[in-house]
């Protein structure tokens, strides 16, 4: 546990010590503020829908940006050799990094709490949709960060990893649309594996079991794949 904590803390400190984190947080808040300010729902229903839909989409680009460095850079700089020849388990390396990314993303969400505070100050918002909306955003973030980490484990080139992560994330976001021209059955199947299909419900205050299961299992799948990719260098 000591080793795991060391990995987590080191990764967290790297994030917080880099200017890029603050730049990304600023962008996140800027995009969120734009969605918040321009959406009629903010004024008519005192809801966070505008903020959530804009930041939800922005997350597709932010998530990879936060994570692609994590393993690709270790590979590029050769420091992965230090990690993998230390008595740490591979899952400790993967989860230490993942949790650090998740923690940093959580900090960004905390930074955006002034949007709901504005709603409370100037209107009478419903607490339910705000909480469920943030839960949805956090879960979507969990998926996107896992996809980013997985891409990062495949290459030593962070830019390539970013492109790969972006492609994967957009694929899972838009796959639901691909079925719109095909038959009813196909469309349903494609929608149920689409990230975007589940997201709007969260901002309406609905926490659906299948949405929870889908987001969490997709996260688990990509973390598992990351673990296998890291392990694979032990038998390649």
């Amino acid at each position, binding site marked *: 546990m*000591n*080793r795991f*904590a*060391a*990995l987590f803390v*080191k990764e967290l*400190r*790297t994030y917080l*010590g*880099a200017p890029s984190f603050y730049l990304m947080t600023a962008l996140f808040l800027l995009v969120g503020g734009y969605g918040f300010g321009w959406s009629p729902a903010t004024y008519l229903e005192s809801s966070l829908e505008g903020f959530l839909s804009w930041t939800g989409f922005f997350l597709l680009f932010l998530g990879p940006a936060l994570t692609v460095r994590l393993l690709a850079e270790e590979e590029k*700089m*050769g*420091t*992965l*050799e*230090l*990690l*993998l*020849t*230390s*008595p*740490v*388990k591979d899952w400790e390396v993967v989860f230490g990094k993942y949790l650090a990314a998740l923690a940093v993303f959580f900090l960004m969400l905390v930074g955006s709490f002034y949007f709901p505070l504005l709603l409370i100050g100037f209107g009478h918002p419903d607490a339910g949709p705000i909480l469920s909306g943030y839960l949805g955003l956090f879960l979507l973030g969990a998926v996107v960060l896992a996809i980013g980490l997985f891409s990062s484990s495949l290459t030593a080139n962070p830019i390539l990893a970013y492109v790969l992560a972006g492609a994967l994330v957009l694929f899972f976001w838009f796959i639901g649309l691909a079925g719109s021209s095909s038959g009813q059955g196909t469309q349903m199947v494609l929608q149920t594996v689409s990230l975007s299909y589940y997201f709007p419900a969260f901002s309406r205050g609905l926490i659906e079991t299948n949405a929870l299961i889908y987001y969490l299992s997709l996260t688990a799948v990509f973390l598992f794949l990351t673990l296998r990719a890291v392990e694979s*260098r*032990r*038998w*390649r």
Partner: protein
Amino acid sequence: MIRLPPQKIGTHDFTAEGTAMIEAEKLTKYYGTHPALVDVDFQIEKGEIVGFLGPNGAGKSTTLRLLTGYFPPSRGTVRLAGFDIRTHPLEVRKRIGYLPENVPLYKEMTVRSFLFFMAALRGLNGKRKAARVEEVLKDFMLHHQAETLIHKLSKGYRQLTGMAQAFVHEPEVLILDEPTLSIDPRQVVRVRERIKAYGRSHTVVLSSHILPEVALICDRILVMDQGRIVAADRPERLAAALGGPSVYEMEVTGEEEAVRAAIEKVPEVLKIRCTGEGTERRFVVEGRPGKDLREALSSAVTAAGFTLLGLTAKEMSLEDIFLRLTRHKEDKS
């Protein structure tokens, strides 16, 4: 190619399992179809400092990486302290300190925080961790650089930082890939001393392509070339076994041609060169290896009526041995 029989030297303690500290059997590693290492066998005992010596691409780093379990062998086995690297990788990794080639470091960290991190990864904690970090900072002359970001360090200090992280948890086995590369000469002496002192009670495996380096530090040298071990012995015995005193320098009074003629009478003499003028004149005589010709040479010149002022046998330097062992390709062509 000159091949020496593998030699075990001295009596060493064995680990509890009744085996050597490191045992490699038929180690083979392919990168794709390119064989980087072919059927390499060696044993390293506790308290031994062993150096892998060879030109670039000889398979030194590959061998060291196989010992650390960074990647697995294509064939063959490695056991460290009795633990098979394939079946008990964590047990092996708990026992090693490793300095990889090119010294990878987290550049955004300070020296001290990096060492703290590495110490924690290797399982140290609390007061012991803090104490050990301060010790290695001092041991490797890094205490003035402790709060410097690693990317601002000079190459030499980065190398020292890499060394410090390998030593920090006092591992049973130290594995150092090119340990003294780019360290400045004054500090190299100190680093060598550190390695030697540590090797008295622990096992040290290092690689280098710098000959005097391994000769100075190591108890035993394994010379590698093209993925094989081509010779293995103590530095001084390596020289003796391969060369013997085969080059002699003579100072003789008298006419050059006449002296040459006298020396040529010794049947084992292969070549005579004359260097310098006047009092600086020396005859450099090459003889067949394996036999000391000093007696024959001195009686040959004195019998011819010349005065022998000096005669020294020059041993083959390690450089010569190294070149001899690794130049077989050109020899064949």
